[in-house]
């Protein structure tokens, strides 16, 4: 991928020109396959910016309430979440400088081995960037038309079953939930200062998941982060996808 080089160069140029104060991007993580989101403030650190198919984290979550002019790199899914945050007044557009970067999908890592594309990338239908200042290699975003059909395939498959089967399906998943809140914390459009899940009256089980999904209703950008981070492999984003499916109808 030559995006990475261009990203580093543009970061240096923009910083030298005084347009930006810091950069939000990915840096190498503990393993090559786990790049982590990071803020870079010193120009000599810009060489550490990483961009490859393992950059699974959605950067827009980290722009919430930034106060300094920040350069951020957004792929289509990040860009949609970012646009949603701007719409909800969680970040000032003028505090950001957005570079849209091309994306060919991220790869799932399983026991140290790269596997297939992430589920959310296999079913991704986003090709556009709602907000950006400049672009890097955005022309080669491959989005097969099969993705459109694949997006709601699992939702409609479950819908066509008996409700007892659906209940069993979710019961099997939710009984595995350890209520770690990772699905809530990672969600880019989940940003309330006080959360009902943190009350002295904590919700859990299906109650938790119904409320979590409904609180994201109409704001979920279908980025699939919630399912990606779940340590128990629960496909939580399916609930949000079902809500998108219903409201599209």
């Amino acid at each position, binding site marked *: 991928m030559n995006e990475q080089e261009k990203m580093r160069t543009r970061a240096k140029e923009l910083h030298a020109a005084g347009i930006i104060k810091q950069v939000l991007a990915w840096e190498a993580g503990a393993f090559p396959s786990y790049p982590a989101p990071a803020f870079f403030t010193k120009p000599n650190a810009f060489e550490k910016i990483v961009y490859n198919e393992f950059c699974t984290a959605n950067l827009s979550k980290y722009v919430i309430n930034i106060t300094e002019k920040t350069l951020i790199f957004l792929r289509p899914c990040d860009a949609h979440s970012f646009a949603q945050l701007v719409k909800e007044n969680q970040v000032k557009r003028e505090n950001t400088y957005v570079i849209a970067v091309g994306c060919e999908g991220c790869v799932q890592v399983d026991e140290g081995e790269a596997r297939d594309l992430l589920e959310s990338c296999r079913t991704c239908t986003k090709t556009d960037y709602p907000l950006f200042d400049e672009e890097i290699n955005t022309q080669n975003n491959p989005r097969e038309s099969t993705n459109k059909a694949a997006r709601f395939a699992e939702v409609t498959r479950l819908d066509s079953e008996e409700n007892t089967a659906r209940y069993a399906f*979710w019961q099997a998943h939710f009984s595995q939930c350890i209520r770690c809140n990772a699905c809530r914390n990672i969600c880019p459009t989940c940003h309330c200062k006080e959360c009902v899940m943190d009350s002295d009256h904590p919700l*859990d089980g299906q109650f938790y998941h*119904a*409320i979590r999904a*409904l609180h994201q209703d109409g704001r979920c950008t279908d980025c699939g982060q919630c399912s990606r981070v779940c340590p128990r492999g629960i496909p939580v984003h399916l*609930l949000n996808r079902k809500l998108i499916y219903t409201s599209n109808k």
Partner: protein
Amino acid sequence: MSVKIVAFCCNWCSYAGADLAGTSRLNYPAQVKIIRVPCSCRVDVQFILRAFVRGADGVIVCGCHLGDCHYSTGNYHAEGRLTQLFSLLDFMGFERERVHLEWISAAEGAKFAATMDAFVTQVSALGKNERYRNMYTKAGAQNE
């Protein structure tokens, strides 16, 4: 077998409709427990789920007819929100027949009684609520 029904009724129409049903001496099942809310949009989805967890077998939300809401647009919000809730519950495998949304005006005492009758029959056919009641895990239920 008698099922327990919780009815959220908006103050301006449906609650008055229930009143009219009473003053007109219409009968409707006694297991319907009415909770008065200022507007149908006051009903948070958690109210409904919590009613189920605490032992309701069916929950019905009643408001003014579309366009007649005392606060102009409250019932449109309620409709949008509850449509999503009902579709999500159905998707999670909960019985769709246990929840209902109905518009009843202050002049429709008879409609109120008929709606409650029909809803009680519908819920009775399903029997006791097991799935909704166990929405919490065991640990979660202790906090309830």
